[in-house]
Every structure is written in C-alpha cells, then in structure tokens.
C-alpha cells in the first residue's frame, strides 16, 4: 500500500514539472500539483548555491595565481557566466533540453520562446544554466596567466553554445548515452562528467595549445613552482565551492520530495573531507610540510568525484571515493607537470581526472537503494553490490566519450582561434602580468608587490 502512495506522489510530481507548457503564471501548474512549491523552492535555492560557485572559482583561481593577473582572472570568471547566461538562453538550452532528434541534439526552445514561457521550463532552464556556467568557468584556471581575454570571451561562447549542451543532451536530455544498453545506460547524477570532465578536458586542450607559462619550466626542463598570491582567497574560494556543492549535488534530484537529498548531502561532505585528508597527508609524507594548496585541491577533487555517484552510494563509499580522489589529484598534478603541461590551478587533475573517476565509481559502488530520481523505477547497482559489469561498462563508455568530445572540440576551438589571431598574450605582457595590458587595471594599486615572476 505504501508503495502505491509514493508511486502516486512520484507521478504527480513528475507531471508538475514537465507538463503544462505555457503556464507562465504558474497557477495551473500549482493547481495540478499542489506539491510543486516545495520542488520549485528546493531547485531554485540549490540553483542559487550553484551560481555562487562562480565566486568560489574566481577566488580559488585568483588565490592560486599571481597578483599581476588577478584582474584578468576576475574578468574571465565573470564574463564566462555572463556569456553563458545569454548564449545558453539563445541556443544552448534548446540543444540540450529541447525535443530529442535521434538522440543527438535537442531542437526546440530557442531563446526560451513560445511554449517555453512556462514556469516549469524556466525552472529547468535556470538549473541547467548554472551548470553550464560552472563547466565554462572551470577552464579559466587551466589557461590562466597567459590566455588573451578576447580568446576566452570567444571560448565561452563555444563551450556554452555547443560543447556543453550537446554532450549534456546525450546524458541528461534523453540522448544516446543515457540509452546505452548496459546497466541503466550511462548515468551521471549531478555531473562529474557533464560538467567537470567537460570543463577539465577543455581546459587541458587550452593548456596544451597555449603551452606553459614563462618560467614554469627551468632551462633544465624541470617544472618549477609558481606560488599563488593569496592562500586566504584560495581557501575562501574552496569553502564557497564546498558550500555551493551542497546545491549542486542534492539539488540534482530536481525535487524536494526525494528525501534521498539527506543522503546526498552527507556523501558530498564526506567525499570532500576524505579527499582533503588524503591529499594533505600524501604531500606531508613527501615533503614533511602541511601543504594547504594541495589540501584545497584534494577537497575539490573529492567533491568532483562524488558528484556522479552521490545519490547511489552510502557513507563509507563516499569516504573511499573521496579518498581515492585525493590520491588521484596529487598524482595528477605531478603527472601533468612531468609531461610539460602547465595547469596553474590544477583544474585538469581536479575536474578532469576526478570527473572520470566519479563516473567510473558509480559502476563500482552504486548500492542499489536508489534509481533515477526515484526509488520506484529500476535501481542503480554497481559491481561491488552484485550489479555485475553492466553499469560499469556504460560508465566507462560515457567517460571515454566525454573525454574525447571535450578534448577534441576544445582543441579545435583553441587551435582555430590561435590560427586566426593568436590566443596567447605577448611575452612582455605575460611578464608584466595581464592586468594592465589587457584591462588597464592593476588589481592592487595601493600595495607594493614583489617577485613579479
């Protein structure tokens, strides 16, 4: 009998958000589903938190880079969301969430026009937009301190108009990846892949096309540290991101009726903690110093990794997944540097590597207590819980596609721009810092700054 009750609830709920196109006032939607308000309130507030992550990224990246590029980082971290907002409204949302065309792209809802002038559609748009903005802003860290603002401006267009929404459609818009015949198809609860792997690997492409910053590698080719200008800002940014992630993951139920949100919040937090703990301890073993920067990276790595599985695992698994993420981010940072890749804030390791790990982990740790936004339907089960290899395969395929798609298109985009107008600032501009040549505005004119390179 209980089953029935909540099936009905789930059903009404389902309706409430999807049906009733063309209800701009919201009254009909409410009448049809008096339960809708709690869902709207939950989704919106979580969306606000996700938006706030923009501030977190800005602070982390600024903190991890030098004072002479702080203005430039603020400019980029703002413009990407500005561009994403406008472009995603114009075309991105339609491509991602419009009516499916052969599992490849969405095709309706351009400019939020016509039928889309509806409270339910606007709600979904808002949610998808803040996610698109997050994917876009991740890249700024990997290409920091040398990419022209103009190039970043254009890149923002490409990522929020094409790269993000199309892949997003494949996973969340009813596209082909979500229909893979293994397990329940490729699943990515809150976007380890859709958001973070995409951002991380587009970032890798950018870093490769740009090449390392001047003085990042010594004449001997050995990587050198280029300390950021404010650990305080980096830590503040990490706290803001951690805070925002509580909107990012639990909010991805897209419904306040899924009490599973409590489990998701706990898992999100535990993974962050485990990632931070492992990262700082690892570096301590190596250098005998308590490395704050790496701890912050580890914390974010844990959050990225748990983003895909957070709804389908229990607490202990979150700790394990986060711990592994902490390990991966440390190895990742050394790995890329050893290969001559210069990623000033560690975005590729934090978001790229751990995004992939997050997707895979679903196929391993999903415990079969929860399904696709419901406990009714089929449940997600991973290898360790007797779910066999099915889900794992779907996850692997999705992850591989994600990496290729993001890196491929990212590489093409940056290469093309480089061909046309050169995406890297002039050497002397890089030495002086981008703030004055690009923006005319030093970030800290009242302060005496030193060690400019």
């Amino acid at each position, binding site marked *: 009998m209980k089953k029935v009750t909540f099936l009905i609830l789930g059903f009404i709920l389902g309706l409430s958000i999807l049906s009733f196109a063309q209800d701009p006032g919201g009254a009909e939607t409410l009448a049809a589903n008096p339960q809708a308000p709690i869902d709207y309130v939950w989704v919106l507030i979580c969306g606000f938190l996700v938006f706030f992550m923009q501030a977190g990224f800005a602070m982390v990246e600024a903190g991890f880079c030098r004072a002479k590029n702080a203005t430039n980082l603020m400019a980029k971290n703002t413009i990407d969301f500005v561009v994403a907002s406008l472009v995603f409204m114009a075309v991105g949302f339609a491509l991602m969430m419009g009516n499916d065309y052969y599992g490849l792209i969405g095709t309706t809802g351009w400019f939020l026009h016509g039928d889309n002038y509806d409270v339910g559609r606007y709600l979904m748009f808002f949610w998808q937009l803040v996610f698109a903005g997050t994917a876009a802003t991740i890249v700024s860290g990997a290409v920091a301190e040398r990419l022209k603002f103009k190039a970043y401006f254009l890149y923002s267009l490409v990522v929020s108009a094409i790269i993000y929404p199309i892949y997003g459609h494949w996973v969340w818009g009813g596209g082909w990846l979500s229909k893979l015949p293994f397990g329940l198809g490729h699943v990515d609860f809150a976007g380890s892949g859709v958001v973070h792997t995409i951002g991380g690997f587009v970032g890798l492409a950018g870093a490769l096309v740009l090449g390392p910053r001047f003085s990042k590698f010594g004449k001997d080719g050995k990587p050198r*540290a280029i300390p*950021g200008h404010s650990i305080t800002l980096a830590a503040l940014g990490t706290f803001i991101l951690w805070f925002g992630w509580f909107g990012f993951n639990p909010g991805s139920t897209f419904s306040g009726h899924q009490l599973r949100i409590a489990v998701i919040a706990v898992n999100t937090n535990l993974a962050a903690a485990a990632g931070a703990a492992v990262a700082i301890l690892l570096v301590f073993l*190596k250098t005998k110093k308590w490395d704050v920067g790496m701890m912050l990276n580890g914390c974010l790595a844990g959050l990225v990794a748990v983003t895909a599985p957070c709804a389908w695992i229990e607490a202990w698994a979150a700790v394990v997944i986060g711990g592994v993420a902490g390990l991966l981010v440390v190895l990742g*940072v050394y790995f890329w540097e050893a290969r001559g890749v210069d990623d000033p804030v560690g975005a590729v390791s934090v978001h790229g590597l751990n995004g992939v790990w997050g997707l895979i982990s679903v196929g391993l740790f999903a415990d079969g207590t929860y399904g696709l936004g419901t406990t009714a339907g089929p449940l997600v089960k991973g290898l360790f819980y007797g779910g066999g290899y099915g889900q794992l395969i779907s996850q692997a395929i999705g992850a591989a596609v994600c990496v290729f798609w993001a890196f491929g298109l990212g590489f093409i985009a940056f290469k093309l721009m480089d061909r046309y107008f050169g995406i890297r600032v002039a050497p002397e501009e890089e030495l002086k810092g981008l703030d004055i040549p690009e923006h005319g505005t030093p970030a800290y004119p009242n302060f005496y700054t030193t060690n400019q390179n």
Partner: protein
Amino acid sequence: MKKIEAVIRVEKLEDMLGVLEELGCCPGMMITHIEGHGRQKGIVEQFRGREYKVNFLPKVKIEIIVKDFEVDKIVKAIAKTARTGEIGDGKIFISSIENAMRIRTGEQGDIAI
C-alpha cells in the same frame, strides 16, 4: 657627517629601535624593508606539492646619518643588538655625507641632523 647603513634581521628591528633610543644619540633613521642575498642559504618553500628555493630573504635596512664622532658608538650598539652569531646577521656600511638640510627649518650641516 656619515651615513650608517645596516642590514639586519627583520625580527631585530624592534629591539634595535629601543637600544638606539636609549643610546640617545640617534637623531632619526630610515627603515627600508629589502630582500637580501648573501652567504645565508635561501629557504625552501613549497606550493601545491612542489618545492622551490627562495634566494632572497627579507631583511631590514636601517640608515642613520650622524655626526662623525658618533659613528663608533652607534655602530657598536647596532652590531651588539643585531648579532646572533648565525649566518645572516647582516652587515654595516659607512659612507660619508657631504651636507644635510632639515626641511622644516632650512637649517644645514651638523645641526640639521
């Protein structure tokens, strides 16, 4: 008139001031925060898991212009206060100043100091 130019450890600055004040004969001074490089090894710092060497150490430079006969007393006092015996204590340099003027009054020469 001579200029006494002393490079000392940052953490010695406060004591130094006290000592010189007691000494009475210190008319004024200019303190500059500099970065020093000398025998003292630079320190190793690290950032996001990677270590790097810093060759410049923060030091404080004190400049005092005094009448010739006061030089020794002050140099001794400074040396005594700044000494720890460890590498990095710093140095004192003496050079000559041809003239001085107190802007407020326009006085020149020794009385201007």
